[in-house]
């Protein structure tokens, strides 16, 4: 018992963090032992980064306490964290591009109270550290002239120079090539061997299985599982991340693969850059037919967000073509794409789908308020809006006291009905639905599914993106698996083999 306690470097207990509109972390407990690589696994938005930013002093927790080496500590800033031996390698590097490596390492690390420091001495220490851990880098090179993987080395050296023995790495491989990834892993192993600890944040299962000693899975701000690596399998981890057994799933409706007509949407060789500048969508090809639900299966963070944002004119397209009924969309503005008849149910209805402080009726006309009959000569026609809203509220059975109640006060299911009613009205040809049932209860989920099927039966094309594999399987006529920004395979619903889909989602192809 006591020896085990002594082994624990960092212990976080009951950590709760609230952001406007969301509970990002809900009473999370986490222990990190000496000489261990702990992987924090979870989808985007599961709370991994938030938890680590709390440990690194970038956020303050609303509840909970942190112990480092058994003592309760109050980490108010990254400076405090560094003093405790905690270092963090961010996804977005925090280097000064026009400074040299050694200047970047020194920055903020001057411990001499008189503020004196020696560039030469530091440069030597950097070289020494680099030799020890196989992180060679020229101390006098300018950071902006170094390739990405070298910049990451500088970040690591920065943390090591400050005496970090707990290293947090936030998706360090997102920007790396496979070779650089291997070198990074070698470093992590050496670092662990020296008795240090690493917290490795990722949503890539294969990497986690390769490098971690212990794996903790977060979902929606809660710890949902913890397993040692020996006992972990990709399937098991995927199940915990996604929160669903990949068991038998029954079809919600008859398949609709007969009578394939002209494709409504054609995507050819599409390339889209993510926020980190890497190709999040990489030479992707996809066709969606009228009257089909086309499901995209995949672990989140494989380019789904970038794909749908590019389709809707919210993110620039680097290369390739998108055609809707033959009309190119690549340079289209969101407004034009809406007018062409494309609806979009976004993943985050609070952030992207609704203006919470606007009324139900205002949200219902959010994409058409400036068109006739809702506007004439730039003046809102309140009568027409009210009439339309009343009718929609009735036909979709939206539970609201009045049409001018702020949509904030509706339940989640009714809020989503507002979004869906609006998007169905917009989507004359194509409906993009991203996680359309996230956070809904069973009844509302069922309702949303029926609406999607109805949209399909009326001849619209539906692009369904969901990390709930069961949702994809029960609704889709065809399923495409996305991995690292590419469609690995498109399968008709009746030919689906569960194991194959599961492995494709992890990037394993070519199995027969």
């Amino acid at each position, binding site marked *: 018992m006591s020896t085990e306690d002594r082994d624990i470097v960092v212990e976080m207990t009951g950590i709760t963090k609230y952001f406007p509109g969301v509970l990002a972390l809900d009473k999370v407990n986490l222990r990190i032992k000496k000489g261990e690589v702990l992987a924090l696994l979870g989808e985007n938005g599961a709370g991994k980064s938030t938890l680590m930013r709390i440990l690194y002093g970038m956020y303050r927790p609303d509840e909970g306490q942190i112990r480092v080496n058994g003592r309760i500590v109050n980490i108010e800033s990254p400076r405090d964290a560094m003093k405790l031996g905690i270092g963090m390698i961010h996804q977005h590097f925090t280097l000064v591009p026009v400074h040299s490596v050694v200047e970047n390492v020194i920055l903020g690390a001057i411990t001499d109270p008189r503020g004196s420091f020696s560039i030469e001495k530091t440069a030597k220490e950097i070289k020494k550290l680099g030799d020890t851990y196989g992180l060679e880098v020229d101390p006098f090179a300018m950071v902006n002239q170094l390739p990405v993987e070298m910049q990451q080395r500088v970040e690591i050296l920065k943390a090591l120079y400050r005496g970090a023995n707990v290293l947090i790495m936030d998706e360090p491989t997102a920007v790396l090539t496979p070779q650089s990834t291997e070198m990074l892993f070698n470093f992590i192993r050496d670092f662990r061997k020296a008795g240090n600890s690493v917290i490795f944040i990722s949503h890539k299962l294969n990497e986690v299985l390769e490098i971690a000693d212990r794996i903790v899975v977060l979902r929606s701000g809660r710890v949902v599982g913890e397993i040692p690596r020996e006992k972990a399998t990709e399937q098991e981890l995927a199940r915990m991340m996604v929160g669903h057994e990949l068991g038998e799933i029954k079809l919600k409706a008859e398949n609709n693969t007969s009578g394939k007509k002209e494709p409504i949407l054609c995507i050819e060789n599409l390339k889209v850059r993510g926020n980190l500048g890497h190709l999040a969508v990489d030479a992707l090809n996809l066709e969606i037919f009228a009257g089909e639900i086309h499901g995209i299966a995949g672990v989140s963070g494989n380019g789904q967000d970038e794909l749908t944002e590019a389709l809707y004119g919210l993110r620039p397209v680097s290369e390739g073509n998108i055609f809707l009924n033959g009309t190119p969309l690549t340079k289209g503005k969101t407004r034009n794409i809406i007018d062409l008849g494309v609806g979009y149910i976004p993943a985050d209805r609070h952030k992207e789908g609704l203006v919470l402080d606007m009324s139900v009726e205002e949200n219902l006309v959010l994409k058409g308020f400036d068109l006739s009959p809702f506007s004439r000569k730039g*003046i809102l026609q309140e009568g027409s809006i009210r009439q339309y809203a009343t009718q929609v509220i009735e036909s979709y059975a939206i539970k609201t006291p009045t049409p001018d109640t702020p949509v904030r006060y509706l339940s989640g299911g009714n809020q989503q009905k507002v979004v869906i009613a609006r998007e169905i009205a917009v989507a004359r040809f194509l409906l993009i639905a991203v996680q359309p049932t996230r956070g809904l209860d069973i009844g509302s989920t069922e309702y949303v599914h029926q609406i999607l099927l109805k949209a399909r039966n009326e001849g619209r094309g539906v692009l369904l993106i969901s990390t709930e594999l069961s949702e994809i399987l029960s609704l889709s006529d065809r399923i495409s698996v996305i991995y690292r920004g590419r469609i690995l395979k498109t399968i008709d619903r009746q030919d689906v083999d569960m194991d194959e889909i599961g492995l494709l989602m992890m990037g394993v192809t070519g199995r027969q």
Partner: protein
Amino acid sequence: MRSDRHILLTLFPLYSVIVGLFLSGLMMLFLGQNPLVVYRDILLFAFRDIYNIADIFAKAVPLIFTGLAFGFAYRASLFNIGAQGQFYMGCLASVSCSLYFSFLPKVLLLSICLLSSLIIGGLWGSLIGYAKARFNANEFLLSLMSTYVAIAIMNFLIRGPLIEAKGEYPQTDVIAQSAWIPLLIPHTRMHAGLILALLVAAAAYFILWKTALGFKIRAVGMNRDAARFAGIDERKIFVSVFFISGAFAGLAGFTEVNGIQHMLVQGFNPMIGTEGIGIAILGNAHPLGIVLSALLFGALKVGGALAVQVSNISSSFLGIMEGCVMLSVIISYFIRQRIMTVLEKKRLQEESKVKIL
């Protein structure tokens, strides 16, 4: 329950006025004055006679404009704290037109002055909106600094091309009577600019809540992401909001030059922009609220100016009193945000509890 809370929060700025008056009352005690007596005097003086009552309205007019300037942009979640500069640009436009077109008939001349101050103030403001749209510049800093540029332009023009005929002081000549805004009540300072201010407040309300443009402005203000997903081009909104906001502040220049001063003196009314911010917050960024708070501040100014004369408190104390009220109004804004966050947090935690059960 929930709507009760809402009303309490909406009234929050009112409490802060009381707190501000209480704080400045404490200071009066240190100066050996009974604050209750002083406040009674302020009230009595402000409403003593028709001249003073009319003056309340005259003082409120420019404050309505600068309050609307801040409040309108705030509805789009944009911070225009450069109303002072936009006001000066409006002053310059209006005084120039008054001086150069003095031969025109009154109605035409006044219309030109009005339009020029509106357009120049608006263009000056829309530069900020453009920089934000084009370069993602921070509108807060930009609008703040644009005031200093406007002051420099004003200093240059008033010491140069626009300087009075005598060439002695940095001020313009008195403008021709034909450029004066007519008085509403003779022998007072209440001029027809009041009607303009009320019309503009009504227009602000109309634009925000009755037009498609206002719909876009509010949507961008309340959720920029959702607005983007709905195909609203936020960059266009930045430019139009700053044009309208700047135009409001510019109009204050027209009413001050042509309605009160009848000339332009270098650096006059230097607090009008800042006061507008407080007034907009006090008025909940709603045009009606802004008109009422501007009248409240007008009354404090008029009554206070006279009360300090009889109570042997230094007249500079008036500034302290205004400052106390303004500060507590602005602080109250942040306290209110904080309370709303806490309430929202409670609500979310309760909801998530229900879900687990």
